[in-house]
């Protein structure tokens, strides 16, 4: 057993060194494929994360009739809080509204100079429960709100909610399509290189058959080669992705960094990294398996 392992490792090494250039290329190609895939995974991960933060911000604004007496506000707040799907409700006074407008107008806030807050309507900012943060459920809640007579108008980012759903949908779909394509590509590429490795060793393999080498002695080194290629390819991809991720921050000017700081740009969690490495190995193995099925017939 010890001997077998030693033999297999030596032979795998010999094989890889003998076709060093094409091995490097294969590893490079696997790395590129995996890099594309994992860049995408990273993007999806961050986008999902970002969307989750954003999702939390989906809210319904109910404008109260101008001049609603403040005594009515408290019971109305209670009533609204009890509605199905509502998580929190915050009262926005006309003064708060003024502040909000100033922020929103940013550079052009001078426009507001001389405006009295009193002319602005008060409003409720209503946060939905997690499960209610999608277009159909929100519509139901809004319908309930509209039944309350003290509200002048109900507003919510309907467009955004819809776009959000579509975005998530596109993202998931692309992930699967792209992922599938790249996986197939990696298997093909590994299989191809190994097939070429094997055919460049055809003479040797023939001689091995001739002197009575057992099939597993011939095959296992190729399987191992595929595994190693996949592992190194995956590892390189992750390393490169990490450098890219780090480099992003170094390169971005301070002004944008402040902006990015608001959205946390995370790196892939360890578990995902492990999966990517394992995936690379499985793909590499599968590629070498396919190759040996095609080329390594016993003679």
């Amino acid at each position, binding site marked *: 057993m010890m*001997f077998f392992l030693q*033999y297999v490792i030596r032979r795998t090494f010999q094989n890889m060194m003998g076709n060093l250039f094409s091995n490097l290329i294969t590893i490079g190609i696997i790395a590129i494929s995996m890099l594309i895939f994992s860049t995408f995974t990273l993007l999806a991960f961050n986008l999902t994360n970002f969307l989750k933060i954003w999702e939390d911000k989906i809210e319904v604004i109910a404008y109260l009739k101008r001049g609603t007496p403040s005594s009515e506000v408290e019971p109305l707040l209670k009533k609204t809080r009890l509605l199905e799907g509502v998580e929190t409700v915050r009262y926005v006074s006309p003064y708060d509204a003024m502040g909000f407008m100033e922020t929103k107008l940013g550079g052009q806030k001078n426009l507001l100079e001389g405006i009295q807050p009193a002319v602005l309507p008060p409003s409720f900012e209503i946060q939905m429960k997690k499960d209610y943060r999608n277009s159909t459920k929100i519509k139901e809640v809004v319908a309930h709100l509209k039944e309350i007579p003290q509200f002048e108008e109900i507003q919510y980012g309907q467009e955004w909610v819809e776009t959000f759903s579509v975005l998530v949908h596109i993202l998931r779909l692309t992930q699967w399509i792209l992922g599938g394509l790249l996986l197939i590509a990696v298997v093909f590429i590994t299989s191809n290189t190994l097939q070429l490795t094997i055919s460049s060793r055809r*003479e040797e393999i*023939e001689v091995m058959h*001739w*002197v*009575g080498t057992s099939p597993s*002695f011939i095959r296992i080194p190729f399987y191992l080669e595929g595994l190693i290629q996949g592992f190194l390819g995956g590892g390189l991809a992750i390393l490169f992705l990490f450098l890219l991720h780090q480099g992003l921050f170094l390169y971005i000017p301070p002004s944008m960094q402040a902006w990015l700081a608001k959205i946390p740009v995370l790196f892939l969690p360890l578990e995902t990294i492990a999966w990517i490495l394992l995936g690379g190995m499985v793909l590499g193995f599968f590629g070498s398996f396919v190759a040996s099925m095609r080329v390594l017939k*016993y003679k």
Partner: protein
Amino acid sequence: MNEAMIEMHHVFKTYPSQISALSDITLEILPGEFAFIVGPSGSGKSTLLRILFCAERPTSGEVVVHGIHITQPDFKKIYQLRRTMGIVSQDFKLLRDRTVNENVAFALEITGHIREEAKSKASEILRRVGLEEREGDSILALSAGEQQRVAIARALVNSPPLLLADEPTGNLDARMTLDVMEIFTDLHQKGTTIVFATQFTGLIKRYSYRAIRLLDGRKADSHKVEEVKATG
């Protein structure tokens, strides 16, 4: 089981292109025997050896080697059978990018000998065929006759009970042929069964071993096995 080392019963071999290489061959080679297979070029000598070596399957008939029916062998087990045979192929089948010693040691390594042991055993057998000075050279650096001797060394290194040699002296000059024949005679005396295919009738005249003659392989009905006892 049977006491014969090799048995062939009504063996036919017709290649896909309708070339009949062997037709109705029946023969028996006993353990420890030295048998020449003689016949002109194209008479089926190599085909016969390849069938014994499981590198080719007979079209019909039965072949038994070491008491094992190899007519329809388990593909996964062929390698075990091959380890009990040494073969000298007509085209040598050496690894071009390895050294002489590596080529011979290779056959030992894959059967589980550790590297150093394989190397020294290989050296020993290479000395026997007179290539002790060429051990470190690449196969490509050898003349045809030298390559043939490496092939012989590799076949012998495992001390197989059965030796199949296809024209093993075809590229050797007269003196070397004598040397090789001496090695073979020696092995024969130690009990190794030897099947020796050649077209050089000179050899069978010189050595008084049993000779099985194949006739022109192109005419199917003329395939016959004849026993030719040559005298001294």
